[in-house]
């Protein structure tokens, strides 16, 4: 039981990260109907940007708890900004000229961009793994022997303990907060209304005076900003990054987006949580070697049997 709860917590943390990346996929797919293949690599780029910023900031702010929180907030804001700028430039250079071209063109361009980004980071930052010391240690003891922690919610005599690490609390809280903020942005503001209008019918939206290109640019920036949040969280949770870390989280996040119903924001998060849970439970109870196989199989099975996802609208093909 304790083991299961612990895996549940780990899975939800991982799922929050996937959910944040998945929003970038789902928003871009919703608005221009394109699988943004480079999104996983944008996420990878953001982890590098965040690590560099952290390494610059940490010696300046010191080592106190408040200082680390301050550094994290600054890094989060700067990484969101810089990654957003990167994705804005990528959209401008690699995708916008291909709008109105045949359907595979942006996908091919995005594949090229994905290869470019991962190799760019490899060339400028070196091929070795980069790591950082754990920033936030400790956690709340939910169950376990009282000797290991000072206080436990459900003290037990012996056996496997359950810990909710502080960094996991941070990750889930920030994910929830930012999701609420973006949800508000998309549902309640004129910008979000423009985005949803473009999603439904970009031609009509343009005729009604919406700047479609600008809206699409903002969508890319928003997607990248959320990927950067995921990047910072990933760095916080695992503390080790590599130039090749974009592909697999990218595909898993895409799986999450498809599973939740592509185009739907809450669906992406739900899908992310499901994928995170399945991955951590699969590694715990079946085989850690085959955890990626499990994720890819879910992708295939979902696309084949449930192509509109859990919360998506079924697509009607018009002749």
């Amino acid at each position, binding site marked *: 039981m304790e083991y299961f709860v612990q895996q549940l917590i780990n899975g939800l943390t991982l799922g929050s990260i996937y959910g944040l990346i998945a929003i970038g996929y789902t928003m871009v797919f919703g608005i221009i109907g394109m699988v943004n293949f480079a999104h996983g690599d944008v996420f990878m780029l953001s982890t590098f940007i965040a690590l560099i910023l952290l390494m610059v900031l940490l010696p300046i702010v010191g080592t106190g708890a408040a200082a680390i929180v301050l550094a994290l907030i600054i890094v989060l804001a700067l990484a969101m900004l810089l990654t957003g700028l990167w994705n804005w430039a990528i959209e401008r250079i690699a995708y916008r000229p291909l709008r109105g071209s045949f359907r595979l063109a942006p996908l091919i361009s995005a594949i*090229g961009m994905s290869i470019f980004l991962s190799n760019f980071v490899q060339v400028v930052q070196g091929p070795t793994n980069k790591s950082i010391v754990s920033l936030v240690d400790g956690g709340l003891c939910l169950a376990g022997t009282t000797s290991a922690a000072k206080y436990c919610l459900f003290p037990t005599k012996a056996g496997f303990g359950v810990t909710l690490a502080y960094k996991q609390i941070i990750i889930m809280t920030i994910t929830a907060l930012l999701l609420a903020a973006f949800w508000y942005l998309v549902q309640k503001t004129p910008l979000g209304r423009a985005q949803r209008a473009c999603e439904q019918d970009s031609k009509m939206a343009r005729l009604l005076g919406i700047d479609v290109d600008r809206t699409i640019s903002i969508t890319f920036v928003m997607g990248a900003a959320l990927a950067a949040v995921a990047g910072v969280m990933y760095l916080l949770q695992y503390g080790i990054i590599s130039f090749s870390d974009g592909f697999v989280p990218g595909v898993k996040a895409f799986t999450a987006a498809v599973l939740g119903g592509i185009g739907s924001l809450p669906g992406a998060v739900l899908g992310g949580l499901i994928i995170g849970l399945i991955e951590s439970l699969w590694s715990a109870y079946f085989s850690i070697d085959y955890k990626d196989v499990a994720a890819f199989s879910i992708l295939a099975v979902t696309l084949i049997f449930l192509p509109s996802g859990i919360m998506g609208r079924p697509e009607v093909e018009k002749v």
Partner: protein
Amino acid sequence: MTSIDHLVTTGRGQTKFVEGKLGTAVREGVKFAALMFCLSIPILLLRIDSDIDHKPFLQLRWTWPLLAAAIGFLVRFGGLALASTGTKISSKINWHIPPSLSRYFATAGLVFLVLYPLLMLALVGRAGSIKWIDNFGIQVMIYVMLGWGLNIVVGLAGLLDLGYVAFYAVGAYSYALLSTVVIPLYVPWLSPWAFWVCLPMAGLLAGVWGILLGLPVLRLRGDYLAIVTLAFGEIIRLVLINWTDVTKGYAGISGIPRPSFFGLPFTAADNGFAARFGLEFTPLHRTIFLFYVILALALLTNWVSMRLRRLPVGRAWEALREDEIACRSLGINTTNTKLTAFAIGASFAGMAGSFFAARQNFISPESFTFNESAVILAAVVLGGMGSQLGVAIAAFAMVGGTEILRELDWLKAIFGNNFDPTQYRMLIFGFGMVALMIWKPRGLIGTREPSLFIAEKKSISGDLVKEGHG
């Protein structure tokens, strides 16, 4: 296109540049340079390095962001200045190759390929030519064959397959396992002929896998199909990595028998190829032979797909690519039609894979990553979907071009000894893919000959070839 479509695509967001104004070019250039500078701020300025104790530290590099900004300025300013003088590298010019010239070109290319090993021998001598025939010639021809095979799936049937490398892997592992485990154990007398027996079997097995994987996924539309095939490709690679009992995982399978000259091994022994024909033994014989084998296999792929195009099934493929709904209403069994394309494409990949395993003598899952699929797909799309010649040229340019990067050691003299051109291989490749897509979205050769015509042949512009929604 309706007039609204036109308005939409050329409305805002195109360059707001007034022609003939150098000042605007400078301004745009500065803007672009500023963007490049901002983008490069953390990632280029600071490099994460670790010292001897594995303690990470940041290394400051002042010049890199400035260099990025300078390149950005030059590219943007240069492009706009060129445009203002009226010189324009137009993407509208379709490299229209008339059928007669195309045939002439293809013949010339074929003659060149047949003479290529001899030409290399004459040019760089025995020692140097192994590298040029093996690393360059054979490598390029493998990708040409894979490109032509994938062209059946993507170019003719309009099914975007991002996991094509899976069938290549199936072929390679089939040959590796058959020739190292099955044949020595059960039919040892067959081992001199191992390659020739296993080649069709690998093709067959890959074709069966194509059907197995294709059956559930082929009712998906365009990009979903692409993602599912990508997932299948990755699953196969991960299984190859983790199923260590059979595939030996990352360690790979080594000691795979090399192809024989129809039963005669390429060894210095008395029953070897050299002794039998009274030649002096040299490993060059095998390299040259391998080159002709892959050339023949590639030409077989080309010939089969050209013939299939004229058969009812080939016409059904092309019709399917243009309009799936129309096809269905005309009574074409779309699933079977797609499956044949998928299976035939897969079996050619399987044969290429078995050749690859035989040539390498060693295979591991490392050779079958998604990057390989991307390279093959890029050859098909950038070459112009459906155009056999275009695919060959694109494969030649991309694989050959990146192989040539390995030869650029002289650049070390300019950039210092730490400069390693090979690490820029995939970087340039990715950039080239994006650039070529923007410049010519329809591929290098955007026209192709119709398979079916009334009265006279007319070339079809690539712009008319719609991507099928299948």
